[in-house]
């Protein structure tokens, strides 16, 4: 469904992504891990059109979407959330989701309906008339997911959807991810909390200093020498 | 004058003008850099600085360059008071509220000036530094050279202060991350008040050196304000060297355009250069 071929992104002299390739199959939950500064978010930005890679290609459903504007990529079917939460503070929760829903409709009624469905999935229905600015961080993260869902995306990319949450909130978030996946939506997750990522992922990509060091099923990843050395070993329980 | 001398003269004129613009621009850049807000009343602080120099001259017959420390101190105090009384209330508010406040403040200050001192143009007679020197046929007016040098020194001093001193680093830390700064024991309110005072003091110094060559009237600030803002944007909001170099660039383009193209269109050219620059570098030359 989504394929990256040799994606490379530089910031000045710094190689944020160095020749990264990966392949996500339809219906998968695909995890990306790596220590801070490994280039996970940069890779997300390259895929979703927020950054232009210097080299390499991004292919989505057989279409080359490399360097397409972010809004068109969203229309093509990839929606994302942000590590630093980006909700529309002055709009209500319902309206936030509606903004996403307007991606494929001009009708307010349709948008309202889609938004309600998305809010149901992320368990924010009871907050739908509150201002997004008044939500707590966990709720905001869920609201981002609702907005992404409401766009009708086939692929949802979640940037650290679990970081900074309490244990209970995290369990809820994992459940939401699973629910979304069960609707047939493909998911790419970024986390650096391994314990969260491993159980839910079908396949995991490990980045370190911008380079791909492993891509495999979770059970193999935890036994991979290089991963243990570079990531787990060096940084303990990072 | 041969064409080469004319070119040099035009550039020199531009640099002298640019350094005056920079004097105002640096104050704007400090406030923007530390507090992330824009002070539309900076030009009016300059006006107050000029009047302070003028009245000190009238009452005690001190040359503005001699009385500069007094002017600077007065303006610093004023800046801190303005911050505490007014600006502190909007520091967390949206940009529009900050704009509204400083706009209003500039209207009030201009008209308070009008109320207190009338609208007559005033100049300070018998200043210490005067006359013109000729270097290879290029005329350099000394009382325009003084502001230029002061402007350079001020840019250097402010830069040094922000980069090298403990207090300056506290300013920077605050500008980068307020919460973190508070965590390491920096009182952000104090930093803001001092930064605002510092910016006002810069305007005071600018007023001192400008009052020896320029006329003084309540609306004098607005004459420089727009160019100063454009200079700050051109250099990159918040960057002190950026504001200085932005000022020089505006000055030189004004001067070159005025001579080689047409006096009527020199603003168009200067602003055009600015617009073209920010279109390619949206955060200005040195912006971050």
């Amino acid at each position, binding site marked *: 469904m989504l394929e990256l071929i040799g994606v490379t992104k530089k910031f000045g002299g710094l190689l944020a992504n160095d020749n990264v390739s990966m392949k996500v199959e339809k219906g998968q939950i695909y995890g990306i891990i790596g220590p801070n500064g490994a280039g996970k978010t940069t890779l997300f930005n390259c895929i979703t059109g927020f950054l232009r890679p210097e080299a390499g290609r991004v292919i989505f459903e057989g279409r080359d979407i490399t360097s397409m504007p972010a809004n068109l990529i969203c229309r093509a079917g990839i929606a994302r*959330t942000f590590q630093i939460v980006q909700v529309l503070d002055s709009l209500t929760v319902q309206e936030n989701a509606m*903004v996403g829903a307007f*991606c494929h409709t001009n009708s307010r009624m349709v948008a309202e309906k889609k938004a309600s469905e998305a809010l149901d999935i992320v368990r924010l229905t009871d907050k739908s008339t509150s201002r997004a600015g008044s939500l707590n961080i966990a709720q905001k993260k869920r609201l981002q997911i609702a907005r992404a869902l409401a766009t009708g995306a086939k692929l949802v990319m979640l940037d650290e959807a679990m970081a900074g949450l309490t244990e209970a909130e995290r369990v809820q978030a994992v459940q939401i991810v699973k629910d979304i996946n069960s609707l047939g939506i493909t998911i790419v997750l970024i986390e650096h909390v391994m314990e969260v990522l491993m159980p839910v992922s079908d396949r995991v990509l490990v980045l370190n200093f911008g380079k791909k060091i492993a891509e495999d099923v979770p059970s193999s990843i935890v036994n991979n020498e290089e991963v243990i050395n570079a990531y787990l070993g060096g940084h303990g329980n990072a | 004058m041969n064409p080469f001398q004319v070119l040099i003269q035009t550039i020199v004129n531009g640099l002298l003008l640019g350094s005056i613009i920079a004097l105002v621009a640096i104050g704007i850049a400090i406030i923007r850099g530390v507090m992330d807000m824009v002070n539309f009343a900076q030009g009016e602080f300059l006006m107050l600085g000029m009047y302070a120099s003028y009245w000190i001259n009238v009452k005690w017959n001190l040359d503005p360059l001699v009385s500069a420390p007094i002017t600077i101190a007065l303006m610093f105090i004023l800046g801190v008071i303005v911050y505490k009384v007014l600006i502190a209330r909007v520091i967390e508010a949206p940009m529009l*509220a900050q704009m*509204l406040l400083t706009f209003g403040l500039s209207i009030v200050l201009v008209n308070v000036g009008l109320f207190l001192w009338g609208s007559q143009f005033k100049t300070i007679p018998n200043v210490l530094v005067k006359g013109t020197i000729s270097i290879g046929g290029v005329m350099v007016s000394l009382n325009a050279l003084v502001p230029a040098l002061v402007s350079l020194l001020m840019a250097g001093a402010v830069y040094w202060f922000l980069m090298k001193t403990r207090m300056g680093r506290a300013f920077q830390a605050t500008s980068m991350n307020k919460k973190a700064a508070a965590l390491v024991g920096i009182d952000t309110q104090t930093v803001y008040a001092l930064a605002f005072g510092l910016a006002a003091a810069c305007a005071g110094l600018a007023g001192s050196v400008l009052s020896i060559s320029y006329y003084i009237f309540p609306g004098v600030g607005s004459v420089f304000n*727009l160019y100063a803002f454009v200079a700050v*944007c051109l250099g990159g909001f918040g960057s002190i060297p950026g504001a200085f170099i932005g000022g020089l660039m505006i000055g030189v383009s004004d001067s070159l355009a005025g001579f080689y193209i047409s006096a009527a269109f020199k603003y168009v050219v200067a602003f055009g250069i600015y617009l073209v620059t*920010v279109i390619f570098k949206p955060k200005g030359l040195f912006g971050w």
Partner: protein
Amino acid sequence: MKKYTVYILIAAALLAAIVLPRLLPKPFEKHVLILIMLYSILGSAWNILGGYTGQVSLGHAVFFGIGAYTSSIMLIKWGIVPWVGMLVGGVIATIVSIIIGLPTFKLRGFYFAIATIALGEMTRTLFLNWEWIGGAVGLELPIKRGDKLINLQFYLSKNNYYYVLLGIFLLTILAIYVIQKSKLGYYFRAVKDSHEAALASGIDTARTKLVAMGISAFITAIAGSVYAQYLLYIDPYVVFSSAISTRICLVAILGGEGRLFGPIIGSSILVILSEYSRAWLGGGGKGVDLIIYGTLIVLVAAFQPRGILGMVEMVKAKRQKAVVPNA
């Protein structure tokens, strides 16, 4: 029930707006009313771009002036009625706004604001030196007596200017209301709140801003045309002045930016204050009127940064909070 009250309120306000000029016989009072309406339109137009979409323009006089000049030139040079000139002016302003918007929308926040100031000054300089449209000497519009609506010139009854402006204002408000409820309205607000989130929701942010700017410029130009017909004299210092740009923006912010009825509230306060304080205090030549005017702006900004309507909302919210625990 609640909707019912709203309708009654709207009807009452409309009636008041229609009757008001009849109750105020003095031309100066009518002049004040006309200015209030004019700035309500201008503030509402600004609000579309500045309030809803979050792009603070300090150069709206550009569009105002283009509107004023287009209809005046068409009337003077070719004898075309101002209503046609008004629409042509609106279209030209829209085109200019897109030309301005394409490069400048890359700029964020203050950078955009300063760029619009610079553009305003540039436009004024160009018009000052453009001899074909009269340059600095300006244009005097031919006086047409007989108060025909088609001429958009009312020699005897100032009320008519007011009603024309009221009509334009109502249309503007209606248009904004419709936009607000539509996809476009959501997109405007999304762009304002978070550029990133907007992009990630499939919004073409640049295009959205251009649309906002285009609508805003169109309405501003229309108001400019009426103003030219009202003053019957324009020159670049009159219609391209930065004071107009600033005032348009102040009107919207003072009332509460991004709110449908913010501009009319802001404009009422600002115009009444500045016109009457000048009338009483301006004769002394001491600037007392402007001190008061500026002080009010400072006070509102310092104590109620979200504008008058923001304040009203806050008071309401407080009351509700106070009520809820008891209930």
